[in-house]
């Protein structure tokens, strides 16, 4: 019987083609949409983790409260010891200290007078110690545009766009004017080794990367740091593990009220990321539900049209003694075949497109001009295990629902009128 139904489906294009196409498109869109969202999330998480939040981040309690203002006066001291402890306790993570700082960058001319000047958003990272992992974390080698990477103390990298604004060439001197940890004015000379572009618009605006020991010296921050970032060794964020580490770490300081004790937060916990992730999550669920409903309605209508067109067939089958239940189930079987074919094809093509978008990526820097969230300018989709059924199940479900509803018509059919109907 199944074979018989299948033959019918194959031969009757209007019975198969339109519904299969509907399911195919619905599933395809779902898969690509989902892959895209996953890619966007991964992108956002990754960019944030590397440039700003880490997978977990340790700050002083006071600093954490005003983290957006980069309050270096609230940074903690004794970073060396704390970092060693963290490394020992959580060897699964890379631990790096960073200092963020703001100020002016002043480019002097030959006479030492200001030639150009601009505000700078700087980040001091460990560039030169033996065990540093910052080169990988920030991907500095790939980010380099002109000049070379810093090789010795006193050398910095600045954003390519920023360099063009300031008319500064690699090899030239730049003076950082900022304030020390204790509030007095700080000035330090650096050599611009090269220019960089991270491809993260929010990062590339006025960026400066310097070695942390240079900045400690310049800002009077000996053995101090604004933040210590922890990243999982493979750079993949694991929410549960991060929450565990955070809870354990913070429990160790729970009894004390000192504002300068360290506190840990996870990536989603920082600067509204959690809300953002939740929003994206509920958005995808909403879109999926809408897809299922829309697909069901379309397929329901296709089913209704089908039963109109197949009115005669259904009539003869009833007259021949097929029970209504059997006929109804055979319609459902047909629809499951349709759903299966459409869902398999949709998932396959959707995966192919997602894979392409994952490997190729699309540059969206134009849309990111004023964005403050960290987001790689090249957006990529991402294939996750869920993608294999995220379109497939709704595809099957929608065909099933659509046919279940439209097929009810079979039960409404009165056998008493069959002869007359079949004569018409």
């Amino acid at each position, binding site marked *: 019987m199944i074979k018989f139904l299948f033959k*019918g489906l194959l031969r009757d294009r209007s019975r198969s083609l339109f519904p299969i196409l509907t399911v195919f498109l619905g599933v395809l869109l779902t898969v690509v949409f989902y892959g895209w969202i996953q890619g966007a999330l991964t992108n956002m998480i990754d960019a944030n983790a590397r440039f700003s939040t880490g997978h977990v981040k340790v700050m002083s309690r006071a600093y954490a409260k005003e983290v957006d203002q980069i309050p270096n006066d609230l940074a903690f001291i004794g970073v060396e010891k704390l970092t060693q402890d963290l490394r020992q306790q959580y060897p699964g993570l890379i631990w790096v200290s960073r200092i963020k700082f703001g100020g002016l960058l002043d480019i002097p001319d030959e006479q030492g007078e200001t030639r150009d000047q601009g505000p700078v958003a700087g980040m001091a990272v460990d560039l030169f110690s033996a065990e540093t992992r910052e080169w990988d974390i920030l991907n500095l080698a790939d980010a380099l545009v002109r000049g070379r990477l810093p090789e010795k103390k006193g050398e910095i990298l600045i954003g390519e766009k920023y360099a063009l604004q300031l008319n500064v060439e690699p090899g030239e001197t730049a003076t950082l004017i900022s304030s020390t940890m204790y509030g007095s004015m700080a000035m330090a000379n650096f050599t611009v080794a090269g220019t960089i572009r991270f491809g993260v618009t929010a990062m590339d605006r006025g960026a400066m990367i310097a070695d942390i020991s240079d900045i400690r010296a310049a800002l009077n921050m000996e053995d101090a740091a604004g933040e210590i970032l922890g990243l999982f060794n493979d750079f993949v964020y694991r929410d549960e593990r991060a929450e565990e580490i955070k809870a354990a770490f913070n429990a160790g300081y729970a009894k004390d009220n000192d504002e300068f004790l360290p506190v840990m937060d996870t990536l989603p916990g920082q600067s509204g990321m959690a809300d953002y992730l939740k929003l994206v999550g509920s958005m995808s669920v909403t879109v999926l539900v809408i897809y299922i409903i829309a697909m069901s309605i379309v397929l329901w209508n296709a089913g209704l049209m089908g039963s109109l067109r197949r009115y005669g067939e259904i009539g*003869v089958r009833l007259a021949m003694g097929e029970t209504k239940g059997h006929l109804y189930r055979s319609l459902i079987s047909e629809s499951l075949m349709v759903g299966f074919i459409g869902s398999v094809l949709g998932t396959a093509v959707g995966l192919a497109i997602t894979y392409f978008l994952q490997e190729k990526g699309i540059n969206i820097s134009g849309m990111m001009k004023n964005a403050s969230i960290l987001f790689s300018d090249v957006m990529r989709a991402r294939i996750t295990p869920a993608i294999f059924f995220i379109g497939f199940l709704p595809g099957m479900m929608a065909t099933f629902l659509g046919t279940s509803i439209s097929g009810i018509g079979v039960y409404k059919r009165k056998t008493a009128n*069959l002869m007359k109907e079949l*004569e018409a």
Partner: protein
Amino acid sequence: MENSFLIKTKDLVKIYSIGWKKLAALDHVSLNFAKAEFTGVVGPSGSGKTTLLNIIGSLDVPTEGSAEVLGKKVEDLSNRQAAVLRNHSIGFIFQTFNLLPVYTVYENVEFPLLLLGLSADERKQKVIKALEWVDLVDRAKSKPAQLSGGECQRVAIARAVVKKPAIILADEPTANLDAENSHNILRTMEELNRELKTTFIFATHDEKVIRYVRRKITLVDGKVTKDEAMNPTKAEGIGQ
């Protein structure tokens, strides 16, 4: 011999209400049909022929009276039981053939056997046999659209007889056929009737059909006005 009747109707009444008007499509029809009958029900359009076949075929129930088909009272059957009765024991032939257009001749004939759950071997054997009866073995792979009207009706006959039902009900089976095909069809049915002892009941007002039947029941306004034995003319080669 009362018990040897396959079909017994007693005071069959079917009333249709159209608005406030009531119309008796069948008015106390009492008829018996024996095994292997070859009977025509004739009468003008609207006289109740189709309604009668409908009830005998367990597609509809009478308003009053009773119709017993193969020992089962049609008016007492559930939908499901009625379907089972039709499936096992009754074949239908319609004026407009009603073949399933996407299936081949072979598959159309095979369908009732699928519903009966027969094995592939059994099905094949029976389908070939049925196609032999109607002389369409060589068209087994054709689709209905590729066949003439006469051929289509022969497929419909094969589909009705393939499960060897006790009863075949044919409502105006020749109305859409030309004279030659009509005779052809009737000869085929007559042969099957003789060979398989299947009871055939036709509703018709086609003179060509009436020439073949051995019993002619006349309905007028839902009442049986005549029930006569016929001496069927062998209409070999006779046109109109």
